[in-house]
């Protein structure tokens, strides 16, 4: 073989490491502004926002859904009983992940990661993962109607997103008609 085309293992290794580090760099800059998310959901006609209070029995159920005491007493949504959008912050491992959920009737229409601040687990923002939630509703004990496939190395982020989807579906039941 011509020496000019000789494969240099060190260079190959460095190129591989560089290629593997690119997704991490992209992940740290990922951000969808909440107003941008809402504008895309309601195509420019942003409805008035309202809130669902987490009081009485709801407090215990929300604690059960999230696996910890909620850091807020009410959650804001935009829209109405037929179609609503929710934006919730939930801790993955140490940092809050901002997640937007759109609910039509009693099912999820769309779920998106708006801001991801953790160093690992960013794969949950990709459509191959989020589309698993399309059409999902909650059954008894606020469990999702479909099991969500996890992602290796992103267990806590997957859990955070699953819990937020359950929370939004549960709270959407309390939107007054």
């Amino acid at each position: 073989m011509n020496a000019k085309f000789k494969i240099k293992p060190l260079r190959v290794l460095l190129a591989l490491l560089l290629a593997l580090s690119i997704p991490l760099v992209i992940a740290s800059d990922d951000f969808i502004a909440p107003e941008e998310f809402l504008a895309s959901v309601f195509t420019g006609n942003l409805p008035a926002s309202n809130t669902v209070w987490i009081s009485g029995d709801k407090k215990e159920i929300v604690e059960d859904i999230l696996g910890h005491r909620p850091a807020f007493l009410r959650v804001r949504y935009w829209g109405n009983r037929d179609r609503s959008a929710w934006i919730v912050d939930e801790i993955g491992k140490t940092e809050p992940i901002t997640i937007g959920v759109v609910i039509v009737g009693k099912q999820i229409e769309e779920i998106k990661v708006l801001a991801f601040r953790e160093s690992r687990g960013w794969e949950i923002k990709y459509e191959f993962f989020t589309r698993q939630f399309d059409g999902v509703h909650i059954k008894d004990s606020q469990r999702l109607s479909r099991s969500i496939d996890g992602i290796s190395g992103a267990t806590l982020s997957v859990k955070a997103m699953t819990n937020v989807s359950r929370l939004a579906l549960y709270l959407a039941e309390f939107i007054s008609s």
Partner: protein
Amino acid sequence: MGIVSALFVILLSFSGLILHHSPALNLDNQFISSSRLLSWYEIEVPTIKIQYRAGQHGVRLIAEAIYFDSDRLPGSFSDLKGFVATEFGYVAATSNQLLLLTDTGEVIEVLGRVNLLPTGISRIGRDAAGRLVLQTAMGIIDADLDGLRWTPSTSPASELSWSDSTAPQAQLSARIRADYAASLVSWERLLLDIHSGRILGSLGVVLVDLMALLFMLMAASGVWIWSRRRN
């Protein structure tokens, strides 16, 4: 040498075993409160940057944490701009958020850019009619927290009263600093530092490196001796 190696093997295996199950044991969310262990890390606990008082209560900013009286609020914050009493409890302002709190310090809701709250808040206060006003980068804004409307204020500047910072009491300050210090080093961090030798500084890392080399030497020599005996 064998006994020293055995002790190191036990220490490394034990710390490694616990670290392996650290998420299940929730060790990354449990923090060391022992002042002796914390002083080992030579952590310089930050002081309270600013404090505001309203009615019977007050809020303080220490590093990136806000305390309502002596209880830490969830989340991290870069600044604190004021604190006012309202009919439902209190509102604490940062430069880009309003924290709506009950009179016992529970977070009702955090309003931010998603609620179209103007950014660059530098002060929070009230006008002559008791309405909430914000000094923002866009000027003075009337804040309607029910309708989430932010409109330019028409009140004369002389009729506005702003939330002013006050000096924290020494006793409360010490309590908050102690509580904050107890959230800095997790048990997982301590175990990682024991496992890597960093608990003893750079000398500890060298020591663990030497022990690792020693283990490899012992393993290789053991196999070599065993193979010689077999032959």
